[in-house]
């Protein structure tokens, strides 16, 4: 039983799919026996089932009705099939409109996609149980997976599911043969749309669930109007950038990052979300020896890109070590840690940062101008999360304007550019894709990664300490004998 009286203020409502109501009107017109697409009879050996339509006829009808080109009508028809208003009879898994003699049929209104009624798991469980009975245990692999999953987490309702499935099966047997065939095809088509098999695009994909019910009427009270008023006056007071300027900036961003966006260009070797092979992530990870050419190109674009890519940051730190100016980066990282870390650790961290970086005569003293230094030191008396903001920005700009360009001209970077590899794109067969799914591994544990980072940081801190001359003399290291 779903708990109805719980008010948890969570996001439960699907966003309104505005096109569905219009499509319904269209479909009703389309199936009109006089003015719609002409239906024929389907002969399934002994049984004759009426009301099948041709792909060609559908396309022709859409073209005349909506007065559009064939390509657009094709796209529109495919949309109708993908949403489940029409379902194909032969290749039932592929939801496209093929403009030849492939047969389609209209879906019953109960199985139309409605924004208010998402396809529930309990219905799917009952359907799978019924299919299990009909197919005598031979479900498709993805259906079997769903079945096992549902059995695990819907276990309290499982008795009900089995009972309903058997009852529905018996009720279905009361109908005549042609109707039974139609019923089965309909329901199967419905579940292909709402629980698609692996690696198929689904028209029912949407972003996030919404907080408020889009179908609930918005009551226009005085308070609502007052708050809308305040919002709009504030919006008017804000200074806005001219669209010509913002759009050129946008276009520039898109053109520079075109090759790096996985939606616009297929990533090499392959998109892990699609092929379930995580080689792409492994090649771009922090600890890899030789990075990919694409990421090296990305580092050149701006200092921020270099810093945000973990492998890029490692490279930059290597360069800084060679130049013996690693204290800037170390200060930046320490300040970031303080900014994003726990509030309880702030006094301790601020003390550490002051002793290591800011105090006159500190081991890793950073070179910031007097005014910023004064402000920061004064702020550190009562430290809070953002005391180091001014110093951090100064250091960032320093690195960006000076060190970054030296890095780009340095042999470290040029060498990396030469050595960077271009991985070959993957070509997987269907069987290999299934194997990939089964062989997915959870990857390196984040705890392990964090421990490695901490060790590296400690090592860097040790290496950066100024050389204690007396200790070296004591251990005879300076002696040239």
């Amino acid at each position, binding site marked *: *039983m779903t*708990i*109805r*009286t719980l008010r948890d203020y969570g996001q439960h409502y699907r966003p309104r799919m505005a096109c569905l109501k219009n499509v319904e009107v269209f*479909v009703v017109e389309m*199936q009109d*026996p006089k003015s719609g697409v002409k239906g024929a009879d*389907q002969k*399934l*050996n*002994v049984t004759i*089932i*009426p*009301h*099948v339509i041709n792909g060609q006829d559908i396309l022709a009808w859409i073209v005349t009705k909506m007065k559009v080109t064939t390509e657009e009508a094709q796209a529109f028809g495919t949309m109708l099939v993908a949403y489940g208003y029409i379902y194909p009879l*032969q290749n*039932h*898994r592929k939801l496209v409109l093929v403009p030849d003699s492939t047969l389609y*049929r*209209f*879906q*019953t209104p*109960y199985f139309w996609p409605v924004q208010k*009624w998402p396809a*529930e798991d*309990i219905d799917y469980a009952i359907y799978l149980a*019924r299919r*299990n*009975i*009909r*197919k*005598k*245990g031979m479900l*498709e692999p993805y259906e*079997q997976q769903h*079945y096992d999953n549902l059995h695990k987490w819907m276990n*309290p*309702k499982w*008795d*009900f599911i*089995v*009972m*309903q499935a*058997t*009852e*529905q099966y*018996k*009720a279905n*047997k*009361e*109908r005549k043969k*042609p*109707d*039974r*065939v*139609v*019923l*089965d095809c*309909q329901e*199967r088509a419905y579940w292909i749309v709402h629980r698609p098999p692996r690696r198929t695009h689904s028209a029912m994909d949407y972003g996030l669930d919404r907080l408020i019910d889009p179908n609930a009427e918005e009551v226009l009270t005085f308070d609502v109007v007052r708050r809308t008023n305040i919002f709009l006056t504030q919006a008017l007071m804000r200074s806005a950038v001219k669209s010509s300027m913002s759009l050129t900036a946008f276009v520039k961003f898109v053109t520079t990052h075109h090759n790096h966006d996985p939606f616009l260009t297929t990533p090499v070797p392959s998109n892990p979300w699609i092929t379930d092979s995580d080689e792409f992530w492994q090649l771009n990870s922090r600890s890899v020896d030789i990075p990919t050419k694409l990421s090296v190109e990305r580092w050149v674009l701006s200092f921020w890109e270099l810093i945000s890519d973990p492998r890029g940051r490692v490279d930059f730190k290597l360069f800084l070590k060679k130049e013996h100016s690693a204290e800037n980066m170390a200060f930046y990282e320490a300040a970031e840690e303080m900014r994003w870390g726990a509030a309880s650790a702030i006094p301790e961290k601020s003390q550490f940062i002051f002793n290591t970086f800011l105090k006159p005569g500190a081991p890793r003293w950073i070179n910031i101008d007097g005014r910023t230094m004064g402000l920061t030191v004064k702020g550190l008396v009562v430290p809070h999360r953002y005391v180091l903001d001014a110093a951090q920005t100064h250091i960032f700009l320093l690195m960006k304007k000076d060190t970054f360009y030296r890095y780009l001209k340095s042999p470290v970077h040029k060498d990396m550019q030469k050595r960077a590899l271009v991985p070959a794109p993957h070509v997987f067969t269907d069987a290999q894709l299934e194997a990939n799914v089964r062989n997915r591994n959870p990857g390196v544990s984040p705890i392990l990664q964090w421990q490695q980072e901490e060790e590296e940081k400690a090592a860097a801190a040790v290496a950066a300490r100024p050389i204690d001359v007396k200790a070296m003399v004591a251990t005879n290291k300076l002696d040239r004998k």
Partner: protein
Amino acid sequence: MDGVLLSKLKNQIKKDSECKTMLDALNKVTACYRHLVIALGSTSDSQNLREELKKTRKKAQELAVANRNKLTELLKDKTTSKDDRAEYERLWVLFTSSMELLEVDMKRSLEIGQEFPLKVPTRHLIQTGMTGSTTTVAARAMSVQNMKYDADSNIDTADLKELQAEITQVGQMMEEMEMKVQVAPWAVEAKQEAGAELKSTLSVGNSSVGVISICEEDARSCPGDENCCVCIPNGTDSPYSPLL
């Protein structure tokens, strides 16, 4: 002394079996109602279907009230043993799940009924390919041999108003039930394991033989698509198959 205990036990067993039969009946009616709602708005829709829906709904309501009373009486009884209580909680979960399905189906039938009215000069019923009547299903739901149709011609508008009232009634009943009965629905353990439905159905009877013989014909002329909708693999001729 023994006689009193024995009669008490007999009473208990009778109550349990009554409960179970009523739940089975409710389950049957829910399944049939869903089957009827699927046909709504399509070419097998008609005056008769609307009336069947109304009758099935009324029966479902009666059964629901009877079930609820029985189960609340059993659950309120503090003298039941732990096992018995677990059993009653399981029955309660069955009952509430049935009611939820019924409520959703009622709401959907209201919406679809409003969209596809019957009394207009040109009906816009969707040509889905289903042309048969649903009389047999409704007869199964009402547990009668033949259905009698006696509704007036304005069934769609009058019925819809009643339906709206009934939906609110059911909603209120469910909220009330949730408040009054303290059963944790997630704590119930199912008795059936995965694949249990394969064992329970397909009794040897005329219908199953008929289905298989028709399918054999289909298999010969099937386009080779193994997912053809009515084909059952030819090799299995026993109603029971080896489990997964």
